[in-house]
């Protein structure tokens, strides 16, 4: 059953109430799809529509189909049956709980066992600088620590076939490693991004303007070539950043 997963977005309205130019889009298992557009154009709104599997009941009027059918109500709300995991732009936790208590509650809400708690923390610590420990309070974690914990939580606990990611490049964590972790194998990944490397890693990208989906661009061979080149530049910048973070000097690097 999982083998045939497709997600269909039926278009709704843009911010002026005009039907959006892209009126139907089908995304298949294993595909990474980007969402691009100016800030404030409605990228996060599209992500939210997918997260709640909108049925014409959100302000955009979009409808989401799973394998061509309308999903039943429980799939939309019950975390034990949810098909969609979401990493939002949120950089902080508001819950006044320890990391351990929170993760135990979350495994329970998703119907999983407590053995996953330590796995989440270990994985989170591969993405961030200063390590997170189980007895830390969530509210004292830095933005980067919080985001890496949210990322690891999705990879381990909310292991859903559809993953939505909102601007991971601003998270202060290793973005490509995080993307690989979340994408896993055979998942549908939808990523909102302003980052050229991430946008071109996607096989297609949805262009959003004024709240509506206006175009779908397929990443060409030429663009894939560009992606390879800017990835090298990006990795170089990352290594410089890490060097400076360690308190070393970068003089003499070519």
């Amino acid at each position, binding site marked *: 059953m999982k083998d045939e997963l497709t997600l269909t977005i039926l278009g709704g309205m843009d911010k002026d109430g005009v039907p959006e130019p892209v009126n139907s889009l089908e995304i298949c298992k294993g595909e990474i799809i980007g969402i691009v557009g100016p800030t404030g154009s409605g990228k996060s709104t599209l992500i939210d529509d997918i997260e*709640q599997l909108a049925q014409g009941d*959100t*302000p955009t009027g979009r409808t989401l189909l799973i394998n061509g059918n309308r999903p039943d109500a429980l799939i939309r709300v019950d*975390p034990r049956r949810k098909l969609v*995991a979401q990493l939002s732009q*949120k950089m902080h936790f*508001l*819950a006044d*709980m320890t990391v351990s208590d929170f993760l135990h509650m*979350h495994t329970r809400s998703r119907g999983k066992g407590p053995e996953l708690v330590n796995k989440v923390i270990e994985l989170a610590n591969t993405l961030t600088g200063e390590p997170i420990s189980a007895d830390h309070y969530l509210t004292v974690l830095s933005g980067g620590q919080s985001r890496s914990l949210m990322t690891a939580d999705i990879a381990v606990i909310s292991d859903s076939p559809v993953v939505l990611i909102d601007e991971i490049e601003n998270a202060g964590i290793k973005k490509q490693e995080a993307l690989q972790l979340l994408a896993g194998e055979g998942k549908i990944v939808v990523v909102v991004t302003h980052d050229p490397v991430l946008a071109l890693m996607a096989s297609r990208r949805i262009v959003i303007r004024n709240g509506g989906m206006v175009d779908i661009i397929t990443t060409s061979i030429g663009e894939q070539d560009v992606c390879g080149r800017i990835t090298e530049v990006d990795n170089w910048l990352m290594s410089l950043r890490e060097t400076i973070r360690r308190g070393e000097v970068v003089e003499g690097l070519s």
Partner: protein
Amino acid sequence: MKLVVVAGTPGSGKTSVLLHTIKALMKAGKRPAVVKVDCLWTDDDQRFSKLDIPVHVGLAKDMCPDHFTIYNTDAMIGWAAEKHADVVLNETAGLCLRCAPYPDECLAVCAIDVTTGPNTPLKVGPLLTTADIVVTTKGDLVSQAEREVFRERVLDVNPDCILVEANGLTGKGSFELAELVAEGPDVNDNMVLRYNPPLAICSLCTGETRVARKYHMGVLRQIDGFMEYKGE
């Protein structure tokens, strides 16, 4: 006539969620009327009036706001009938965590703000535990994991409730809530409260303002939990 009682702590988003729900009800051909109860002051009636529906404000002033709501329930239903409404939405002041102003034959809705953290559902009491529908608001301000943990805590204290994730800014959840309202029970003349009110009459009820312990009478509870009756 259907009665919907909407409770929830101040700032939880009751009014904003209701505004969207009323629009959805009107689209579905319903004729809603709103009674807004508050303690001392409100301007929410102006927000409701823009929807061009019958709106009535009640200020409890010196009376307990939950008691005020309960005492005036008959009057609200009568007023809504006069205005040819078929659903009366009563938005309570919604602040007492001891009581719940829900009669049995109504749709009891509790709005609760997710950003207050997953320990909040344990503190809210009958307002939450005796509700039919729990509307969680401001979920867009936290991560998905935090929303799911919050949901789990709500189900710990009220396992049979229907949970609706709503957003007062975008209107998320309002269609779902409107459907539940339209299917809600009809009122009758013999409604009883779902949850018992507090122990009756203490000296504060009769106007005592002095703090010292010796001035207090009635059924009293000490901080260590010991209860006693002091009086005639």
